[in-house]
């Protein structure tokens, strides 16, 4: 099975909506926010980075989660020594998103 392309925003939107509604019903607002946090903070930045490589859709989704849960907190942890932990989360997110976009630009330029 190959997952549908992420470019199919409608399908991805439906999947995420189903997941969020499901968690809202079983665990309330904070349950829903937790899952949103996992997708947004751990998966999205690394998906954007892995999207620059020759990997299949499902590989990018799965690897982005398993790499994200290790690398995102590693950066946040060290930043959190110097500044507010909440701000460290935000800065880590911004850094990784920027890395993803810069890589895409550089890759495109070189190809």
């Amino acid at each position: 099975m190959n997952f549908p392309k992420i470019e199919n925003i409608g399908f991805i939107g439906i999947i995420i909506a189903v997941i969020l509604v499901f968690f809202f019903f079983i665990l309330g607002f904070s349950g829903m926010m937790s899952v949103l946090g996992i997708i947004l903070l751990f998966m999205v930045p690394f998906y954007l980075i892995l999207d620059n490589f020759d990997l299949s859709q499902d590989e990018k989704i799965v690897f982005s989660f398993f790499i994200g849960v290790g690398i995102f907190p590693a950066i946040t942890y060290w930043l959190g020594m110097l500044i507010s932990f909440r701000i460290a989360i935000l800065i880590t997110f911004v850094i990784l998103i920027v890395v993803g976009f810069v890589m895409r630009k550089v890759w495109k330029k070189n190809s």
Partner: protein
Amino acid sequence: MKINKKYLEVFIFLIVYLFALYMWTLPFQDNKVPYGEWDAISHWELGDFIAQRDRTFVNLPPFLDYSYGPDNRFKPHTLWYHPPFHTDFAIISAFSNDRMAPIYITNAIFASAILISVFFVINRLFGFLPGILSAFVLTFSMRDILPYLWGQWPERFAYAFIPLILYCFYMYYTTYSKEKSKPIYLYIMSLLLAVNVFIHPMVFFHSLVGIFVFGLVLIIKHKKIPLNFRHIGIFLLIFILLFAVFPYQSGNVIVSFFGSSTPEDKKYSPLSRLLQWSPNPKDFVGSVPESYFSFKDMHGLWTLPFLLIGLLILVVRRENRDIFLLAWLISLYLVLHRDLIGKFMFLHRSLSASAHIFVPITMVGVLSIFSFFKILKVSKSLLKYGAVILVVALTLVYNFPAAQSTLDKAYDSPFIRINSAQVEVSEWLKDNIDEDDNVSVIGPPPEIMQKVWWMASYSHRTSHYFEGFLTWGTFEENRDEVIRYHILNDYIVFDYSDIALLSDRSLVERWSTFEEQNFAGHTLLYNKDNIRVYKYELS
């Protein structure tokens, strides 16, 4: 309307995985109060402390240092685990602005991530049906559910990395040639290995054994060694850089690995041990229930014939994908027998990885049975879907009830989850006394001791003299000393909020008499819902 097959398969996986998460979150759907054994307390409080304090730390705060100060053998008084796992909890807790549900839901997703990685790998190598059936059956794996409930959280998550790491190795090896190769898989493997060691070092070593066995068998079969120094150099560089990011914890991994193992008498001859799959349950009486070592109770006997058929098929066929599963199985066998080289620590915990490889092999067995017979293609297809229905039915009849009842009833006793009054006083202690101050809770008898540990965790305050003070004989001998060091210095909590649960009413009398005799006239700081907090002041 024609439904796209890809979309349908994604939706089926989504349904299975959400159902699994529904099951695995049963213990806290209706009761959002933290629960679990000692290990769970440590994992929860590490994440919660960072989120609540809004800062990370290198040196342990006093309430953690009391219990875990020596646990990092390389640099005592620092975190004994690599920080990412607990920082993940803190990130989601801060993002969701809640102390309990976010940490537990993150943990449930982490612990059940084995369903994602097994589905992904088996789907890629063997197709959708074995993949989705494996994920479905793993939902009810008691060998996963029990340690998840007991609190062995990082280990549960770390096991989900093994199939992915082996998959990356498989992809790199099988696509490797001098002219063309896909080193990205090797680099991702390096990242996954580094994250794996961050999550749980013991499982990281399991991954290394898996790569070694898999690589060796592939090299023997194909007589091909993928030796590209540039690829290997980048692979090592990524891993070493990440390993060095947390020097104290990585140092602890090295020191613990090469450090002396607790000597144990050899209980079995090497031969008899080699012929046993799991360690002897009698060696774990009191810490792990005997059923944990039983194939019947953990996997269901109905899976055994299919598991053996699956094994036979893999051994006979020996395609690369078959070798993948066999190498994974052999690596588990080797790790489970590490006691033969003197590595006894957490031996029983490696057993908890057995369903991850047994289940996919079982599904290969179920779905391959009909390949033995010469029948029409249409009939074969029908029989295959019949086998799928059979597996689902057998799982629902034999595996679902135990899993459902265990998860649904887990920690629902008022003896082990703190009540709202205890939550409130814990919050009060956290907000109103200094981080260095100690808190002693006077009174609780052993049957509700677990709640006191959770109060310590919830309040982030040291509580090294928690109870049994009035009932445990051990304190009779040094009662004066205890009073001198604790009663005179600590904040003292008298918690009568569980009186209705206690069968021994005489204890309550002693408890209240002790309070009247020793604390009358001293500063009462908190008095709510049958809980009082004092600060002893010398007159």
